[in-house]
């Protein structure tokens, strides 16, 4: 059997990680003669943090494993796992990183700068509404670190201050009661909650959507919700900054139902990861971190914004 | 001709030999009292006839044809009705629903036939009246007294024309008045040519209604004789083992 370059993602139930898998498979297809193969795995559900740690252990215990790239859903937990496992093979992080103080446990990070991603969403919102207003943040799983980082990036950008957990007028922005909303990575839940929030706060000015679930998971109700507001959105009277460019999201942007999308490049992550891991195995110097880019789409740039 | 004919029937549960090499035959319109100590195997024996268990050994014949039953409903289709010792009632249903369970009366045509509540309540009421039992057809069985439950179970056997009715202690928990009714009912069945096996621990009942008595002890048949040729004392002796065999 070939030696394996293993990618462990947070959960299989997320199309985002499937894009990483596609990249991984493409690498396999292009490198049939390599002594390595890219192997993709993860727990069934994104919320199964302990399950991911167990899989990491399993992988590290396997003789075939030559290197491992992990997308930690609970950074501290994976750090602890790595500490106890004391792996002999190179370890890197992918898509999500370990905490700064644990960075010695991995050789490099390949992926999106989540804080930057949130900051970019924040910039779009701020640009559209410089004076601020009422905002609601839509988040994913309550424990998901990358989402929390994005939210922080957005809040920091909106206010110009660092580390606020909740906006109470800083920089003109106020988070309304009942927010942030946790969608548990479920499109229907997300869009139902947004509907309720909008009904309860008719004077809301902006949504900051930190994970694209309501758009790509429930595009139709999302359209139903914002079609009546398309006019306001085009005039920047109502602003929606959303993460990801998955599924129907770009089409929604094209219809003018979202102010801006800031997307990651999961395919690129999956495609690049094997090469980076081979470099690590070979002992070559590797940059830390290796950021994959962001795709930013507005109504006007939809046709060109996605890097292929 | 024999309605029912058992030949060398045995049944064991693991190490327990519940019924051991029992043979007898039953003519139409004959009432047989089946007696024996607790655990003698009476219920097990009638459960085999009713299709609840399959015999470990031996053969059964009904009206001269092999009786091989895979499930209880087959027994009923062959004309064998049984009142179970544990009554087999659904507590969450009404008395009428229990009486008609498995043979609901419906009205309407084809696939659109719906339950005919009215007729079932009426018929159930009639049967209870016939049994002189104060049982309300529309009430849930859950809240009924032991005797009312018994009445519901017995009412079931009166729905169809059976060839053979098996009664596993139908008079155990019912009052004098109803015992008399049940015994009268058994006589009615006999007069209509239906064979009855009556399991009972109540000597007077068996002696007043049965034509023959079969006594079992520890799974074996130890006596099988006409009532007229026996006496309560003898049967008691056979049950307890004071008399070995006749």
């Amino acid at each position, binding site marked *: 059997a070939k030696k394996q370059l293993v990618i462990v993602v947070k959960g299989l139930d997320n199309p985002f990680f499937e894009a990483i898998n596609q990249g991984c498979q493409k690498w396999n297809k292009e490198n049939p003669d390599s002594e390595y193969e890219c192997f993709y795995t993860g727990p069934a559900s994104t919320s199964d943090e302990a399950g991911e740690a167990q899989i990491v252990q399993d992988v590290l215990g396997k003789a075939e494993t030559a290197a491992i790239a992990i997308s930690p859903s609970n950074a501290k937990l994976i750090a602890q796992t790595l500490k106890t496992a004391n792996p002999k093979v190179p370890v890197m992080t992918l898509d999500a990183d370990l905490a700064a103080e644990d960075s010695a446990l991995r050789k490099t990070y390949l992926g999106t700068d989540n804080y930057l991603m949130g900051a970019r969403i924040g910039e779009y919102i701020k640009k559209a509404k410089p004076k601020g207003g009422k905002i609601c943040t839509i988040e994913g799983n309550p424990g998901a670190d990358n989402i929390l980082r994005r939210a922080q990036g957005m809040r920091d950008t909106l206010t110009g201050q660092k580390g606020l957990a909740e906006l109470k007028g800083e920089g003109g922005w106020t988070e309304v009661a009942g927010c942030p909303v946790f969608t548990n990575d479920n499109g229907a839940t997300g869009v139902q909650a947004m509907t309720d929030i909008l009904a309860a706060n008719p004077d809301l000015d902006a949504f900051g959507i930190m994970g694209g679930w309501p758009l790509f998971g429930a595009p139709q109700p999302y359209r139903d919700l914002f079609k009546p507001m398309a006019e306001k959105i085009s005039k920047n009277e109502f602003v929606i900054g959303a993460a990801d460019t998955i599924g*129907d999201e770009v089409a929604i942007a094209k219809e003018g139902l979202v102010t801006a999308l800031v997307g990651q490049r999961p395919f690129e992550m999956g495609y690049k990861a094997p090469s980076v891991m081979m470099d690590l195995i070979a002992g070559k110097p590797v940059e830390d971190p290796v950021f994959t880019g962001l795709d930013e789409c507005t109504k006007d740039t939809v046709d060109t914004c996605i890097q292929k | 001709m024999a309605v029912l004919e058992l030949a060398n029937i045995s049944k064991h549960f693991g190490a327990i030999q519940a019924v051991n090499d029992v043979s007898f035959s039953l003519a139409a319109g004959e009432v047989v009292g089946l007696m024996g100590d607790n655990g003698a195997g009476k219920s097990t024996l009638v459960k085999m006839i009713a299709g609840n268990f399959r015999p470990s050994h031996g053969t059964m014949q009904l009206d001269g044809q092999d009786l091989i039953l895979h499930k209880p409903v087959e027994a009923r289709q062959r004309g064998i009705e049984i009142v179970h010792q544990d009554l087999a009632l659904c507590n969450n249903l009404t008395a009428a*629903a229990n009486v008609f369970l498995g043979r609901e009366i419906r009205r309407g045509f084809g696939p659109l036939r719906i339950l005919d509540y009215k007729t079932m309540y009426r018929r159930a009421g009639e049967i209870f009246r016939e049994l002189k039992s104060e049982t309300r057809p529309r009430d849930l069985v859950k809240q009924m007294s032991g005797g009312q439950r018994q009445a519901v179970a017995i009412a079931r056997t009166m729905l169809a024309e059976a060839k053979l009715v098996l009664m596993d202690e139908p008079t155990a928990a019912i009052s004098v008045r109803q015992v008399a009714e049940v015994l009268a009912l058994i006589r009615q069945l006999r007069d209509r040519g239906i064979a009855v096996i009556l399991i009972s621990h109540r000597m007077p009942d068996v002696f007043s209604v049965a034509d023959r008595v079969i006594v079992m002890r520890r799974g074996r048949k130890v006596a099988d004789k006409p009532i007229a040729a026996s006496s309560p004392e003898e049967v008691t002796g056979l049950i307890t083992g004071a008399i070995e065999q006749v």
Partner: protein
Amino acid sequence: MAITLDQTIAQKQRSWFASVFASQTFWVLVAVVLACIFLSFATSSFATPANLYNITRNVTFIAIIALGMTLVIITGGIDLSVGSVLCLCSMVLAVTMHAGYGIGTGIAASIGTALVVGAFNGILIAYLGFPPFVVTLGMLSIARSLAMVASNNTVVFQFGPDHDKLLALGGGAWLFGIANPVLYMAVLALLTGFVLRWTRFGRYVFAIGGNEHAATLTGVPVRKIKVAIYMISALSAGVAGIIQTGWLGAVTTNIGAGMELQVIAAAVIGGANLAGGVGTAFGAIVGAALIEVIRNSLGLLGINAFWQGTFIGGAIVLAVLFDRLRNLRQSE
């Protein structure tokens, strides 16, 4: 004497009126109505047509599955696989239509999948005597895994030539401005209620839940009915999946995750008894409605997200409290 016997036989222990008051469904309905009245006064946004439209539509997915689940629960079983089956059926529909087939083919494939899954569950439970909990827990895992396989774990959001028909089916409002899913729910609820009350099948479902052994002894085809019940349960999940797909306009492999507990909660809140033998179609709808009203109100009232779980959990418990208190007082 004969007269009194006749009178007794004609008597019914509890009047119709008393039974209604004794039913949990009634008290939960009261709770739903009270909550709605409260919300209408407490917030300006509850009693708006748009919000009511949304609420009624949101109820339907849980409610439709809860109808099937209620049948399962009445027989004394449980079906944990419904959330995953919803996902699988949605995915089969999506993938089929995405591949260019029409909506008819898609729905047929989806329903067929549901029936196969349900038959699998049912046969294992009824003929091999597996505990329903184990079989459907296994299916929970299997069905979602198959959905991943079917879709290659991608988001499907283009449904081929009949794309718009599908969206209209789930997202439209063809009658009096009532959301289509609500219409389907109403029809299915009436149908379920009719079957339970007026057909022999319904009677057998109750009998099995009351005393399975007795049902077998009296010739009820217990096994066949059980298989049918699990097929109906899976079918209800499939139907909900089809409608939900039409509403959402996209399918991901995590839709319906964790839904099984919500559905069971709806059925149980509505008065179905997990010990078997008790349950109504109307109860399933009322239970689902209570859960949705609470969810909706948390957003409208602006409750802190961290505390929302406490409110939802508290409400689930409270829903049954009415009923318990009444029972306790009565048993004194």
